[in-house]
């Protein structure tokens, strides 16, 4: 047979592939919008969850963490120290405890989250030119308490120390300028290169990305489970003449979910951060969309690959829910990538959210353009290609096992069989 005639035959047989694909696309969209469970996952969860998180993480910085002070010195210097501590944005002195026991019992009851103990010889040490020590006891129940108290006490000790040193130097006859440059030969200065944000600006974009991926995986798993339950022979596709080629099924489904997720992505990634005033330094939303397209495609294809294992509608839910938090940790944003064990670092590359979260966060907080996140962008396209292949094999495995079971392995008889079944189904309905 010449190539030409083979091509012609192929065209004749598959000429309607596009039409089939659009038929499947329409069917799938109809399926998504008429299923209550999928609607909850695709629309309600993505609508509500970012808002809830945004409201919970409302304050950018934690200010005025309550602490207790034990002042054993009772001098003007120790009082100055406490005043300065109280004036920092990080902590506020809530209690003046008589002794350490009292302060510790306050901490145990959760009234305060840190203790500053000023020793008896604080002022006499400073006045006699010895080094004075202030003891800090941090609360370890949350990282934030430690961070605030450590920052505040270090700042106060440093600033007050400079003042004391300057006074001593000037008393010994230095000029003001000489004294200042001797205390601080150079000035370490933190610069704000990009907009500084707090915990919410850091957390919300990551949550949004992971939310998109997890709802896609969940929704597709639920839909596939539904197909498995409803269709004949527990198949993942209806027994319908349009569903006769693997690729038209894959692309039809892929496009259906993709079309649904474009507006959702715009809402979750662009409108929600804007609503909560989270720094978004990218030049145009089009760049975000360009970056997010392969992320959506890869997530949908990953969902379709996994979905062949779900035989019931509900089974996907426990499976994907427990994974959300490990995926969040593995994104490398809350826990630095350099400090992960190699195994988990490699494992994290399986999830599109890892690349998407890194790229999206850098676009938002640092104004990175598509060139600067090209590594992530390319990785997402590679993942898309890989998951397209795995989806093909997964679907082929599921479909051929069913074709074999039902004895319709060869293409021609399968076609007749499905036509026959369709007629029978219609008979049953009417």
């Amino acid at each position, binding site marked *: 047979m010449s190539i030409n005639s083979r091509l012609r035959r192929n065209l004749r047989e598959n000429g309607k592939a596009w039409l089939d694909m659009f038929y499947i696309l329409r069917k799938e969209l109809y399926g998504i919008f008429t299923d209550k469970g999928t609607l909850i996952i695709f629309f309600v969860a993505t609508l509500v969850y970012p808002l809830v998180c945004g409201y919970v993480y409302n*304050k950018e910085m934690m200010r005025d963490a309550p602490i207790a002070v034990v002042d054993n010195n009772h001098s003007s210097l120790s009082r100055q120290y406490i005043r300065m501590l109280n004036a920092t944005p990080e902590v506020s002195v809530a209690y003046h405890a008589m002794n350490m026991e009292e302060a510790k019992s306050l901490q145990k009851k959760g009234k305060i989250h840190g203790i500053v103990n000023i020793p008896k010889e604080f002022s006499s040490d400073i006045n006699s030119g010895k080094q004075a020590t202030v003891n800090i006891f*941090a609360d370890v129940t949350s990282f934030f308490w430690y961070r605030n108290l450590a920052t505040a*006490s270090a700042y106060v000790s440093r600033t007050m120390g400079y003042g004391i040193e300057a006074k001593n130097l000037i008393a010994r006859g230095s000029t003001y300028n000489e004294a200042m440059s001797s205390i601080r030969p150079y000035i370490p*200065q933190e610069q704000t290169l990009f907009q500084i944000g707090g915990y919410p600006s850091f957390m919300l974009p990551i949550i949004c990305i992971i939310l998109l991926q997890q709802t896609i995986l969940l929704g597709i798993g639920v839909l596939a489970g539904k197909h498995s339950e409803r269709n004949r022979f527990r198949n993942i596709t209806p027994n319908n003449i349009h569903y006769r080629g693997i690729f038209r099924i894959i692309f039809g489904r892929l496009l259906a979910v993709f079309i649904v997720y474009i507006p959702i992505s715009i809402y979750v990634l662009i409108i929600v951060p804007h609503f909560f005033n989270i720094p978004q330094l990218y030049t145009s939303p089009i760049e975000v969309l360009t970056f997010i397209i392969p992320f959506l495609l890869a997530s949908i294809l990953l969902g379709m690959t996994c979905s062949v294992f779900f035989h019931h509608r509900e089974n996907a839910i426990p499976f994907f829910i427990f994974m959300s938090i490990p995926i969040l940790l593995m994104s490398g944003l809350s826990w630095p990538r350099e400090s992960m064990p190699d195994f988990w670092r490699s494992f994290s590359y399986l999830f599109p959210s890892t690349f998407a979260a890194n790229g999206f966060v850098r676009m938002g907080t640092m104004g990175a353009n598509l060139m*600067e996140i090209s590594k992530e962008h390319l990785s997402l396209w590679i993942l898309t290609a890989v998951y397209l292949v795995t989806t093909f094999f997964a679907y082929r495995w599921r479909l051929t096992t069913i074709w074999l079971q039902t004895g319709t392995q060869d293409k021609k008889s399968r076609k007749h069989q499905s036509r026959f079944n369709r007629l029978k189904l219609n008979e049953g309905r009417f």
Partner: protein
Amino acid sequence: MTRRPIYLMMTIIIPALVILFFATFLNQGMPSSLPIAVVDFDNSSTSRLIVRNLSAGQTCKVKYKLTSYESCKTKMQTGDIYAFVVIPRNFEKDLHNHKSPQVNFHTEYAHYLAGSLIMKEIQTTLTTIAAGVDLKVRLAKGQDYNMAMAQVNPIKTDMHIIGNSMLNYSFYLTSTIMPGIIFLMAMICTVYAIGIEFKVGSSQRWLIIGKRDIVLSLAGKLLPYTVLFSLMVILSEVIMEKIMGFPSKGDPTLLYIGAVLTVLAYQAMGMVIIGLLPSLRTALSIAAFYGVIGFTLAGFTYPHFAMLNAVKPYTYLYPLRQYYMLYCNVQINGLSFWDTVMPFFYLILFDFAPLLVIWNIKRTAVKLDYERD
């Protein structure tokens, strides 16, 4: 139960995977050797001293020595470095001429933990070197070392971290998330176990086995899971204490009792959800949604103190918050039973919630007349 593989997955495999993940993922305790860059415009002995010292610390490591500000910015945007330090031209000369030059450092906040740790370390290193320069000048003038040290740094801050002496970050996360996911599974499993009876229509048989008494039927159905999940949580607590070396000041038995009560409380919440929404899939979606928000609201990642006043009351809807308080009270602060009785009280309170919906569970089980999807 043994017939459906999903039960095995929910009760044994997922909790085991969670324990395995958290036991190995954060084994480094604290991030170290994070890459940063330096732009040294001066290239003098003092500026080189600064560069060397930046690498000497535990947290960061100078990975790139670049020549322009712009290239640093690009490196940061491509995600290769977390921070960079710029030492200006004529740095050493200005230093000797008492001109107080500025050393600028830039960090980013996209990596919150890494960013804060690096900022703290760079600040400390730069301040220490500044003090060192001051000290050298004083020693050269003939001052006594101790005297000079006290003059340079008159107030020293000693940090005592009670319980977590290494400042292990993994501890902040693992101690509550690891049991938290198992609690979440306990709730989902409860919803599933009851909902599947409604879905396949076997709930009437289930009631007959339970002598037509709904309380007895529910207890018979859910107790095996209570035992399984409690054992899993206790296993995770034992692993945290014995293998991962987390602080344990109080009586672990109190925490074990707390774990059983929290499992019961989550099962109670599961019953409430399936009681209100008898359709299995809707109930599971809602339960998952409710449970996942709990990780945000429990207050161990983001303190309860910093939340909006309008949000605070909702945190009491989550047994996980009580469990977290109990963990802090018992394991970190070492309180006795009577000092930490409130979390126990709240946890037991959760168990009464299903009484509100129990009639609906029974009605649905008998009539199976809920709205299916």
